[in-house]
């Protein structure tokens, strides 16, 4: 029996690849039976193909320029080919749809599953997982919670790191706890460090994971922006906002590249038990 309800939807944020929204089918294959909406912008000249492929009632178009006025893009380059606009408009879309909770997803996820020290296990129960994450957000002061990504487990799964104060990609949100993503690119890092420093709690649950196409290899979406500027520039958006706790340094996976580095001791306030508060 489905555990998702009318108060929940999955928003897939897409741009320019109506025939390659991998996440849509993968959600269903991994056991999600609830509502799915494709969120596109009015600067996407492939909108008609989205409507044709998914049905007009399941595709929601927003005004990108209008959304751009509602948050700090951090630059004045005028290049709006990034995901942050869609991320920010999701709260308004959910409210208009009468939905309290949603998960916002990129369009290039090909796997969802569990991750333990013994390895990975594909899930066919996304309904239950989404329900559990939604309950967690609704019943605690947590602002948003996310799946882990493959990169979180480089070096092997660590039993002592089941939860992290970061949040990327798959944000489970509540319209009752709205927040604004910051910056044209690297908006997830900038947001969880900036708002994390102001007392909001963003978490990643390491026991659940999604995988997506490698950055800079999947045509469309934000690939053009990354190829244009590289991850060096991208990382600097977070440094501009949080210079006291975010640095840029090299990392090496398949290739050496510049990436953000967060000094967590200096980034977010600690959560402590109420017993430490004097009466």
């Amino acid at each position, binding site marked *: 029996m489905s555990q998702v309800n009318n108060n929940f939807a999955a928003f897939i944020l897409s741009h320019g690849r109506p025939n390659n929204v991998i996440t849509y089918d993968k959600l269903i294959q991994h056991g999600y039976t609830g509502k799915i909406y494709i969120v596109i912008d009015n600067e996407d000249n492939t909108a008609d193909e989205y409507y044709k492929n998914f049905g007009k009632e399941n595709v929601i178009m927003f005004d990108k320029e209008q959304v751009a006025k509602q948050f700090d893009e951090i630059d004045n380059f005028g290049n709006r080919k990034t995901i942050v606009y869609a991320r920010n408009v999701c709260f308004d879309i959910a409210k208009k749809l009468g939905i309290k909770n949603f998960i916002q997803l990129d369009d290039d996820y090909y796997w969802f599953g569990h991750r333990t020290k013994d390895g990975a296990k594909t899930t066919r129960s996304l309904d239950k997982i989404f329900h*559990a994450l939604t309950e967690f957000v609704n019943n605690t002061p947590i602002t948003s919670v996310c799946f882990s990504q493959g990169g979180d487990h480089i070096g092997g799964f660590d039993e002592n790191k089941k939860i992290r104060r970061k949040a990327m990609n798959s944000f489970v949100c509540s319209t009752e706890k709205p927040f604004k993503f910051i910056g044209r690119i690297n908006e997830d890092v900038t947001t969880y460090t900036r708002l994390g420093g102001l007392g909001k709690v963003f978490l990643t649950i390491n026991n659940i994971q999604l995988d997506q196409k490698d950055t800079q290899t999947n045509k469309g979406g934000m690939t053009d922006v990354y190829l244009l500027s590289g991850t060096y520039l991208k990382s600097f958006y977070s440094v501009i906002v949080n210079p006291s706790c975010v640095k840029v340094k090299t990392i090496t996976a398949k290739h050496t590249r510049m990436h953000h580095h967060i000094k967590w001791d200096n980034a977010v306030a600690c959560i402590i038990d109420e017993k430490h508060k004097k009466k």
Partner: protein
Amino acid sequence: MKQFDLFGNEIIEDDGKYTKKIELPLYEPKNTKPHILELSDRSKARRLINKIRNSNVSEEEKTFLIGAAQRHVIFNYNRIADYYAHSSKEMQELMEDSALVILDFEKAIELGYAKLSDNLLQTFLDEPSK
């Protein structure tokens, strides 16, 4: 050669170790109260502010730049939580207002996370092996 920051913590260059302290959402404050000067490192901000004050830009510009320089103050949130636990009620309330600590009222986060973990574990166990 090992590098240390002003708090005496070793600077670890391995990017993969940055979340080592975050095993559970909750931090347990230590039994000793740190000195208030240990809660933040103002050295870079101070250098910037001195340079701004000695510059020839307008007073309005100085005010703006000095405000921006505060972004370079490095807070040590573990020590801040330690300090909070041993502070007066008034100081605690002011620290709470500034979100320097997050209080887990009625163990909402701890219990919520425990329930989430149980639910995810049960889902994991219920999944077919293939």
